Structures are given as structure tokens and as C-alpha cells.
């Protein structure tokens, strides 16, 4: 049983929710996600996949950030402190931590509601003495969140499409212009952004966290498949929920 211990709006439509429970002790891998039941009835029916944004293992608390826009997330935003939250997880495979060496530089590129899982990742990397650089892309100033929190962990650049905060443009525009040096790239955000990063930056070592509409969230229903890159047979696939959501660069046809 998990219980909501904190719930607050932190940007336009963006909420920060912290819950507490035994299950949090399993949440040691950044990039994994939770499958959250938002209603008590069967309307909405399906769970909502939301990334782990931060974990306090001692207090058995996990924080998620989400955008309340659709039916389910709007309902979630009404949960008050103290109520039960039905959480399944942690699910999937997150960002591997041991593929980057101490002293190397990681660049973490997040877009919009893809930013949250990068926070826990950044904390874990810093713990391992990896140098972290963040590039966070938002639509506008009102949509930005956690910029200060990321700054505590490493250099943080913000880009907004309308230029109301930080650099004006897309994260890829910033990357080309400023060309920060890095060893490994980690990214989470809308698929077009991931595709642009792959094509335009063509990083050697990179990990992408993908999104897709889900049924089960555990690998049983085949709702969330994506195609394997350069597959001549045409029927090789990965399930985002159980094989991912994080994949090394080059595995998935973005």
C-alpha cells in the first residue's frame, strides 16, 4: 500500500506528487516507470505510465512529475494528501549506470514531460562521480520545472521554443550551436526529438527512453511494440514496457 504524502502544482499543468510505501525500496534504477491506476471505478480504465523522477530510499518515498492534461492525469491531480495510490512497479529497464566511467561526462537531454526520469538518473550519475550536463527543452517559460534542482547537480541549459526562458529553439539547435563535449548521451522526450538527436548529433554512446500507449505495462499484450532498426525480416520488435523504455542507440527504429 502506498500513500500520497505530498502533492503540489509546480508549473503550468505540471504536478509533483510524492508517495510513500514499501515498494519504493525496489526503485533503484533510474529510467524505470510506474503504472498508476488513477480511478477507483473502471473509468478511466487503463493505468497511466509515469516515470520515476526521484527516490528517497531511506524514507521509502518516490516522487513523480506529470502533466495533468487528459482525463486520467486530471483525475490523478485531484488526489489529496493521505489517500491511497495504486501503483504497479517499478517496471521496465532503465538507464544503465555502469556503461559510463568515473570522471567521464554525461549529457542528459530532456524534452517537456520527458525531463523527470533524467533527474533521478543525474543524481545516480553524480553519486558515481560522473560529470553531468543537462539540456532541458520546454515549450515556454511557464512549462519549465526543476531547473534549479538540475542546476544543483551540474551545468544546466534550458531551451524554450518561444525564447521566454534560456536559449530560444529546440534542444538540437542548442546542441549544434553550443556543441558541449560529452562521452555518453541520455535522452527522454517526444519521439521526434529523439529522432532528431539521433540523426543530427549521431552520438557514439547514447541511450533513449521511448514512449508508447500501453495496455498491460508488463509485456503481455503487445500494445507498445516498436520495430528493430534495419530489420530485413520486418517482424522483429521490442516491447517498450518490458524491454525498454530505455534502449541503447541503434537498436530501435525511431
Amino acid at each position, binding site marked *: 500500500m502506498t500513500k500520497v504524502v505530498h502533492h503540489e502544482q509546480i508549473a503550468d499543468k505540471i504536478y509533483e506528487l510524492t508517495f510513500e510505501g514499501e515498494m519504493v525500496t525496489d526503485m533503484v534504477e533510474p529510467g524505470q516507470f510506474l503504472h498508476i491506476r488513477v480511478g477507483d471505478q473502471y473509468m478511466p480504465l487503463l493505468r497511466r505510465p509515469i516515470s520515476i523522477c526521484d527516490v528517497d530510499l531511506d524514507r521509502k518515498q518516490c516522487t513523480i512529475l506529470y502533466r495533468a492534461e487528459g482525463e486520467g492525469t486530471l483525475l490523478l491531480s485531484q488526489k489529496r494528501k493521505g489517500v491511497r495510490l495504486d501503483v504497479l512497479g517499478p517496471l521496465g529497464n532503465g538507464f544503465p549506470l555502469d556503461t559510463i566511467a568515473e570522471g567521464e561526462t554525461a549529457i542528459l537531454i530532456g524534452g517537456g514531460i520527458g525531463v523527470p526520469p533524467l533527474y533521478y538518473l543525474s543524481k545516480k550519475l553524480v553519486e558515481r562521480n560522473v560529470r553531468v550536463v543537462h539540456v532541458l527543452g520546454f515549450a515556454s517559460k511557464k512549462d519549465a520545472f526543476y531547473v534549479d534542482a538540475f542546476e544543483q547537480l551540474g551545468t544546466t541549459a534550458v531551451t524554450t521554443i518561444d525564447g521566454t526562458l534560456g536559449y530560444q529553439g529546440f534542444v538540437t539547435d542548442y546542441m549544434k550551436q553550443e556543441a558541449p563535449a560529452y562521452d555518453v548521451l541520455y535522452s527522454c522526450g517526444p519521439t521526434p526529438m529523439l529522432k532528431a538527436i539521433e540523426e543530427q548529433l549521431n552520438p557514439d554512446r547514447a541511450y533513449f527512453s521511448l514512449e*508508447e500507449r500501453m495496455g498491460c505495462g508488463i509485456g503481455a499484450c503487445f*500494445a*507498445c511494440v516498436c520495430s528493430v532498426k534495419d530489420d530485413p525480416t520486418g517482424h522483429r520488435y521490442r516491447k517498450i514496457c518490458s524491454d525498454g523504455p530505455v534502449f541503447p542507440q541503434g537498436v530501435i527504429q525511431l
Partner: protein
Amino acid sequence: MSRFDIQLPGLNMKNPIMPASGCFGFGREFSKLYDLSGLGAIAIKATTDEPRFGNPTPRVAETPGGMLNAIGLQNPGLEKVVAEELPFLADYDVPILANIAGTTTEDYVAVARTVSKAPNVTALELNISCPNVKEGGISFGTDPNVAAELTRAVKEVSDVPVYVKLSPNVTDITEIAQAIEAAGADGLAMINTLLGMRIDLKSEKPVIANRTGGLSGPAIKPVAIRMIYEVSQRVSIPIIGMGGITSADDVLEYFLAGASAVAVGTANFVNPFVCPEIITELEEKLTEKRIDHISDLIGRSWKSCYSPSS
């Protein structure tokens, strides 16, 4: 003495609950959550002759009280299912209902012949909602003659009893059910999903890449109950009931309507422990209601004489 063990052709079930085809994969994921031997049976994902990638994504969409799916029969193909998936399931003491699909009668026959010989496959479930390419894409399940012919062809090659899974998207389901019974089916499974669509207001396109999808979940339960009520009065082969089951009460409703066992589909996505939970809850309910055996309930809503004013 068990109150709810069920013996159906090929399915020797400890209890009447099985996960529905397509909602449980080949059991691997759920085997990490609970012991599959506790289930009454397992209906595995549709198997086709060749491996299939299925439809483009998005493949699911949410609707009021239900969901749409257009997975497109993605599966590793007959060879891999027999070589890898079925042996994995052989470790569990549970009968397997192998769901099979195809686009020609030959496809079905090929899969049925091989799959029915797998040691732990104890029955087949013919998914006849697929489009029949020879008949110009109309579904095998919408024409009584086509459905009967397919049933006959599969019965001929199958080593195990054959259940035919009916599509609800028809004018008269009793006609099709009767034709299938006459063709030698050992049982029926009903219902498959209702055809539906949801349109995204932003993109102004259907949410599901395949445009239409199959509607499942609680929303369709009244349609399934009605169809089972009608069909069970007109056939004498057993019916595996499904559509929106989420609780032991739903299971009782299906039995009263005329089902002899049930399958739980979509609810597994909402609560992955739903099958074992329903099994426990069902046993308690039967005890509480002093029902000696759940089979006493089969079709009781129409078996006793009906007086509308009472």
C-alpha cells in the same frame, strides 16, 4: 470437495477462470507474479502459421469503461510457439487452450494440425474474427456457412477438442453458433471484441493507427451476457464466456446467463493479480451463498420459468 472445478471437453479445470487470449501473452510475464498452476486454464495469444509483426502503433486507445485494441495478431509464429512458448508453459499444471488464427482455411488447418499435437495443448480456440482473404476480406465469423466450413476443416485435423470463438459483430449470433455446433465444434467461446473507433481531437485522426479496433472491457459486458443468454438456449455445447469480467460477481452473472467457464481479458491490464483474486473471491462467494457447485448456476436465468411481473 471443490465447489468450482469444471470439466469441459479438453479442459479439466480446477476452477472456471482462465485468462483470455491476447491478454496474457504466453504466460511468461504473469508467471513472475503468481503461480500459473492455480488458474483453471490458460488461453494463449493467437498463433498464426508465420510470425507476424502486427499493426502499426498506437495499437490501443481508452474508451468509457473499455478499451480498443488493434494488435494485429502479433506473434512469433507456429514454429516458435511450439518450440519455445508451449514448453515453458508445460512446467505448470494447467490446461492450455491454444488460440489460432489465419487468413485462409489452409492457414488455420496448418496451425491446428501442429499445435494440437503439442503435449500440453488440451484444446483449440478458433479465432474466427479475422478477415478471410479468399472471401474478399469479410470475417470468417460473420457468415454461418463459412464459419461452419472452417470448423469442419479444423476438426478434421485437430487431435484435441475445438472451441470456436464468436465475433459479436453480427446480426444474429445464434444462427452462427448453431451452424458451428452442427459442424462439430466441441464448445464456443464468446465474445470477441466489438468493432469500435476513437478519434483524437488534436490530430483529427483515429487514435489507433489501424483506425478501427476491438472494444473490450466492462463496457461490453451487457452485450456479451445477452449473446450468451441467447446462444446457450439454442446449443448444447458448453460456452466459455468473456467480456468485461472484473470480479467474482461478474463470473456468477456469466454462469447464470449460460456460460460453463469464463475468461478474463482486459481486467488483467488494470490489475495483474485479477485472476487469482477472482478465484479466491469466487470460492468465498459460493460458500457464502451455499451454492454446492457453480455448475448448478449454468443458465439458471432462463432455465427456471420466467414471470415478468415478479
